[in-house]
């Protein structure tokens, strides 16, 4: 089995991450921040170390680095927490449902007003489409850093600049970029939401919400935090205010280990490797005439390639490849807006390598894609 579905979740995980998970199960069986005995204290210390590692990786403070279940939870917490008192919000036309669904729900309930900024392959046009939608009551812009469908990188620094000029909160979805690009809060992102189990190589059930603290985030979940227990209202201080209930301590430890792995391998080396595999995949298939790639030379792309094979639906093609042992995600990738914007009514197949894939694996995939259309001699 060869996994090219790493945009959904990376697999395999680095050995150091697997070891960290085992160590956490073995040694960190207490409840972090909820006791003074040895087991609780060493578990708390392990959680803090993971938090500190993640904070340093994104240029944030540890207390502003919140562990969540996944990127979807982080986005929901950020969107609902910032927009609690209403206002106008702008999202891009490339958003994943994890951002689109909460904002459409809030808009349908008339709690917020919503605008959708069209994303173009030309960055200036994209920035302009955001700029045109900004109003006096615009409170936040939610924008992915890279489309989870095509991998197209959005001009987030420029969008962050728009937010800064207008006092707007910039909530960024880094699910497809964190661990591949060096994303830091000083780029102008106010709240960065990301998965821990994708490019950061932690286990599933992990995510991060990282804030610069400039926009308050009202908690959408309240409960035990281990702090100020006699008070019947949620503590206001981060990270406790956004971390109710026992956290996924083992998961957080693996995220810390994943980030250390990235630091040791080199984030530029990881990106370079994955980009090389994407170039190889495209170059081997682009002249066959039967493959449509969702790429435009004007745009830049994260190491994700969305494509279709003429004569097959995306699901049919992925199913045939799965029979040969290749794992690729087909369909709509939980991104209704993006597919509507791209006009891909039958969805696409997504090729998403990780640091662990090899050129040989890509060539094997290419061979079977060609076989599907009897293109092996082309």
């Amino acid at each position, binding site marked *: 089995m060869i996994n090219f579905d790493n945009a959904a979740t990376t697999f395999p995980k680095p050995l150091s991450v697997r070891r960290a998970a085992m160590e956490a199960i073995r040694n960190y069986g207490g409840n972090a921040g*909820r006791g*003074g005995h040895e087991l609780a204290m060493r578990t708390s210390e392990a959680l*803090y170390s993971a938090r500190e590692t993640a904070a340093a990786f994104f240029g944030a403070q540890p207390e502003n680095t919140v562990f969540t279940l996944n990127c979807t939870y982080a986005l929901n917490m950020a969107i609902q927490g910032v927009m609690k008192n209403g206002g106008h919000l702008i999202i891009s036309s490339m958003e994943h449902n994890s951002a689109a669904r909460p904002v459409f729900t809030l808009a349908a309930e008339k709690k917020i007003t919503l605008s959708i900024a069209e994303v173009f392959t030309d960055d200036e046009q994209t920035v302009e489409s955001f700029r045109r939608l900004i109003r006096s009551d615009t409170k936040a812009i939610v924008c992915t850093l890279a489309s989870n469908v095509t991998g197209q990188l959005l001009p987030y620094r420029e969008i962050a600049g728009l937010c800064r000029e207008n006092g707007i909160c910039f909530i960024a979805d880094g699910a497809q970029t964190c661990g591949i690009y060096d994303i830091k809060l000083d780029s102008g992102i106010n709240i960065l939401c990301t998965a821990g189990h994708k490019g950061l190589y932690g286990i599933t059930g992990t995510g991060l919400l990282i804030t610069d603290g400039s926009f308050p985030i009202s908690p959408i979940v309240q409960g035990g935090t281990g702090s*100020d*227990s*006699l008070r019947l209202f949620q503590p206001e201080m981060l990270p*406790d205010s956004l971390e109710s209930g026992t956290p996924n301590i083992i998961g957080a430890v693996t995220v810390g280990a994943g980030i250390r792995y990235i630091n040791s391998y080199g984030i530029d080396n990881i990106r370079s490797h994955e980009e090389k595999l994407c170039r190889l995949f495209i170059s081997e298939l682009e002249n066959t005439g039967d493959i449509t790639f969702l790429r435009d030379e004007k745009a830049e792309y994260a190491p994700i390639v969305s494509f279709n094979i003429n004569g097959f639906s995306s699901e049919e093609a992925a199913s045939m490849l799965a029979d040969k042992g290749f794992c690729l995600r087909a369909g709509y990738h939980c991104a209704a807006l993006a597919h509507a914007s791209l006009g891909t009514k039958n969805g696409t197949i997504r090729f998403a390598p990780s640091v662990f894939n090899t050129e040989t694996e890509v060539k094997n995939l290419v061979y079977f894609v060609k076989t599907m259309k009897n293109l092996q001699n082309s």
Partner: protein
Amino acid sequence: MKSTAFPADLRNTQQSGVILLTISILDMPSYTYAVKAQRLLRSRGYPCRIRRREKSSDRGCGYSVHITGSSESPARLLESYNIPYSVISGGGEGDDQL
């Protein structure tokens, strides 16, 4: 024993040949801030440890940082790093022995 064997701001009291090291207790708003404070203080040479909040408090459970010696300069250090705290015990004579 000579008091000069200890850091300058470490007050000690000789009683019957036994050195009593005074400790200061800073109450922290969360475990996260307690570790952040502990790491900062230790990196600047202040011996300290995190303890569960022991005395009953209106706020309930929490953590405190116990520092060997006076709280004065450690507290200033925490303030300079925007780490919130409140002084429970400033390290005067008669405080608990560490």
